[in-house]
């Protein structure tokens, strides 16, 4: 059976089953950060683990259909901007980081004022940043670049090597 690039069929099938659950768990940890242990950073890293799993299992060329470096750039910047927007909305409601959303009932999901929004923004930011750095570090973009221009000689197997 032809498997293409990436790892074996077993790894790919397990990834198909598991990666969605990992992503949902990451979002859950980020969304309930104001109710229990967790938070935006931990949830974002778990979400990034799902992306890294997909990139590792399916190989760079196949994973590029779902996750590209430019997508990661955009999502990274959007997450950072979202956190700033939450703070700025507070600024327009009074002072920077002011609580402009009613705090709701304790131990409910819709409580904590601006905390869930900030957690979600940080989750998007951390997840996109880590996946983007992983793609950049493992040099999948470089391999594709060489495919496009084969006349250019290869600089070396990895960056930072003389």
């Amino acid at each position: 059976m032809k498997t293409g690039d990436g790892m074996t069929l077993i790894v790919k099938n397990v990834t198909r089953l598991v990666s969605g659950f990992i992503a949902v768990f990451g979002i859950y940890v980020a969304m309930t950060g104001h109710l229990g242990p967790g938070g935006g950073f931990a949830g974002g890293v778990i979400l990034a683990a799902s992306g890294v799993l997909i990139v590792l299992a399916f190989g760079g060329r196949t994973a590029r259909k779902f996750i590209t470096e430019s997508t990661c750039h955009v999502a990274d910047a959007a997450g950072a901007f979202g956190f700033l927007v939450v703070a700025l909305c507070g600024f327009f409601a009074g002072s920077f980081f002011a609580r402009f959303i009613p705090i709701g009932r304790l131990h409910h999901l819709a409580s904590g004022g601006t905390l869930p929004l900030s957690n979600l923004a940080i989750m998007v930011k951390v997840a996109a940043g880590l996946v983007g750095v992983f793609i950049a570090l493992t040099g999948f973009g470089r391999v594709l670049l060489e495919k496009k221009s084969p006349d250019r000689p290869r600089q070396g197997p990895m960056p930072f090597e003389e």
Partner: protein
Amino acid sequence: MGIEVLIVALIVFMLIAALIAVETSDLLSAVIAVGAAGFALSAIDLLLGAPDLAITQVVVEIISLVVLVRLVVTRTDTSATRPADVLRTGVALLAAGVMLAVVFVAFGGASDRGVVPPFGQPVLTHRPDDPIPPGVGKDYLARTAEEIGAANTVMSVVLDYRGYDTLGEATVIFVAIIGAYAMLRTQGRRKERLP
């Protein structure tokens, strides 16, 4: 008493793992030793009652271990370069001196009481013999439920009372990731439709 023995054992394990990571000549072994030290640190966090920190430490450790192992495996050259012996000895002596100075100042060498409170007492709590209570921990615990409405006090401190810190932290990560992108790119970005 038992928890302190466990924590000391974990710290000794971390020290051994860090020494192996520094001293071994195989890069893959060094990466795995760094991972072992990180997991021991997350176990210490869990024992000291900081589940937020422990969760973050575990997931960051897993991700960084995967990334580093992937990088090391794709590298052709796995032998680490070492600095000269004189330089290594000098740096090690300097590090030991700085560490001893920090321990001396923190745990009270000159005065009878150091800067850092004794083990098991968080810095943010009130010390009974202080004339002015320095701690804000009790204040946070008392005010979080009615001011923020969040059940997790840690998150309300991180994202609301200390929101500026978190904004700066997010900015630091953002800049670091942009710097990584800029350094890892071997050739500049070029417009697609050039003649």
